[in-house]
């Protein structure tokens, strides 16, 4: 994109406060994730004791433990910080994979049409028929409660939305004159798909990518909450789950609010970013 367009993007962004907030939030979480080992104040799995040797459980927030401690005397602040990394890895990995898989399938289906399209769309229909969360639960039960299995489960399902939306976009782009012209000029299918159509749908893929990120993070949290998460990994969902089984909802707000709010803010930043991308990339909406 040329400099002028960048300037336009930047100007639009300044105008779009929500988008700006989204980018800022995401940047914040990314920084926290990268520097997590330096930000945490304690080992998230270590138990802490008070001066008289008693386990420091369910301690209120203090200058030593910013978000207090769990029932097992673990530092919640450090857990939440450590959870940021898990959330981002899950979110970004899923976003990238979903975007790639979803876009490629959509391109192939949309471009070739006929039986290829029919077949791929039927597969998409079937995937649409699979209830997401129960499927992920079963997958984790099958493959074991590891974070990678959760990611696989999420990716296996989430591409469907991207595919469906992008396919219809591909269909409309395919009808445009420049594609027809390229065809008349004898360009090969591969070239048309990747040189002519793909660049036009990538903005839309990005929009769905940032949505998929939010999806993935919420799903991971939900699976952890249902008790199917990776028990050794400190994820936000796991922290909430621990709080839930310790019956801390009514007693220890500091254990419930920080991880929940973190999930919400990160997922929301994904929405804001995607919304802002959409406005920037789709002039019809931005006017």
């Amino acid at each position: 994109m040329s400099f002028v367009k960048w300037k336009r993007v930047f100007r639009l962004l300044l105008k779009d406060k929500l988008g700006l907030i989204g980018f800022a939030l995401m940047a914040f979480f990314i920084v926290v994730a990268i520097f997590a080992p330096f930000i945490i104040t304690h080992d998230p799995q270590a138990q802490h004791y008070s001066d008289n040797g008693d386990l420091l459980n369910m301690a209120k927030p203090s200058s030593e433990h910013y978000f207090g401690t769990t029932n097992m005397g673990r530092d919640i602040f450090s857990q939440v910080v450590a959870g940021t990394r898990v959330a981002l890895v899950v979110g970004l990995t899923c976003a990238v994979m979903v975007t790639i898989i979803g876009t490629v399938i959509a391109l192939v289906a949309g471009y070739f049409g006929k039986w290829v399209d029919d077949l791929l769309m039927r597969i998409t229909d079937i995937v649409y028929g699979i209830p997401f969360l129960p499927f992920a639960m079963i997958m984790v039960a099958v493959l074991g409660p590891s974070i990678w299995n959760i990611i696989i489960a999420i990716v296996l399902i989430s591409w469907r939305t991207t595919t469906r939306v992008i396919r219809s976009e591909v269909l409309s782009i395919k009808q445009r004159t420049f594609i027809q012209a390229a065809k008349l000029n004898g360009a090969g299918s591969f070239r048309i798909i990747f040189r002519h159509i793909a660049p036009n749908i990538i903005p839309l893929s990005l929009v769905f990518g940032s949505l998929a990120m939010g999806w993935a993070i919420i799903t991971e949290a939900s699976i952890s909450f249902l008790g199917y998460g990776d028990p050794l990994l400190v994820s936000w969902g796991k922290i909430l789950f621990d709080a839930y089984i310790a019956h801390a909802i009514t007693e220890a707000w500091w254990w419930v609010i920080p991880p929940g709010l973190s999930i919400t803010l990160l997922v929301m930043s994904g929405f804001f970013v995607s919304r802002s991308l959409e406005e920037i990339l789709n002039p019809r909406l931005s006017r």
Partner: protein
Amino acid sequence: MMNSLLDIKNLSTNYQSLAGPVRAVEDVNITLNPGESLGLVGESGCGKTTIIKSIMRLLPKDATSTGEIIFDDKNLLEISNSDMRKIRWDRISIVTQSAMNSLDPVYKVGDQIVEAIRTHESVSKQEAWKRAEELFEIVGVDKDRLHEYPHQYSGGMRQRAIIAMALALNPDLIVADEPTTALDVVVQAQILKRIREIQKRTKSSMIMVTHDISVVAETCQKVVVMYAGKVVESGSVKEVFEEPHHPYTMGLKNAFSDIKGEKFELISIPGYPPDLVNPPKGCRFAERCPFATDICYETTPDNTEVNNGHIAACHHVDKVNEMREEAKKRETWSNFDKGVAHK
């Protein structure tokens, strides 16, 4: 002049854009008498549609209009929203640019005409429907098709349906905003013919907005030529087209086949209209004008009444004959295109 139907005085309209306000229309004066028909001509983007939208008050929220639009002794820019709603369609109706998309796709065409009627008159549905059937007869569409949805119509039929709708309440003024642009030539001719007939019959006034001067020549008595938001020349069709005083009108004439069917070589005006966020200081046409001199870049030309009711805004109206001769030559425009003409 007190009995003019529409009197636009010093109308200026600005839009907001990221780069700053767009001065889409500046200092426009137009007068229209009852029963008269007026052509509004110019390239796309010259502000024709903005004037129409200013009259109908259909501008986006961020647009501002100054000046006066006196319709029936009322300034349309100042009356309340509900008063304006009463004027719309009942007094001023519009035949839109793209009839293709001007009908709501989820309602039957008949229902949409009935809706227009019943919004302004308390008549029963059956009565309104009957009127719609009559209107369809007038515009020459089978009345059974009132029961169909817009997507089942051809382009020409949709245009006719809109015309029928525009006639539904016998308005004092019909605004036709490029009614034939989207249609093929044969249908264009039919529609124009129909419009002319109807206008004669109903004695409504009409504003015909178009970029095609031949359409104006065929349908209108008066013409207003616009360029980059300003009126460059106005007057009776006969005078303006036979004796153009503004180089832009001359150029425009070159770009279309002659009114009387004489074959001319079509010559287009090279270049693009100026950026309306920062319009040039002097004459807005100067950059593209083969006859421009220094003064044209410095000072905005005054409106000069070259004949009774015939007004042109050019510094060089005195050299009009010379310009007219030169303008007929292709080299005048193309040399200029090569950048020879000035600077």
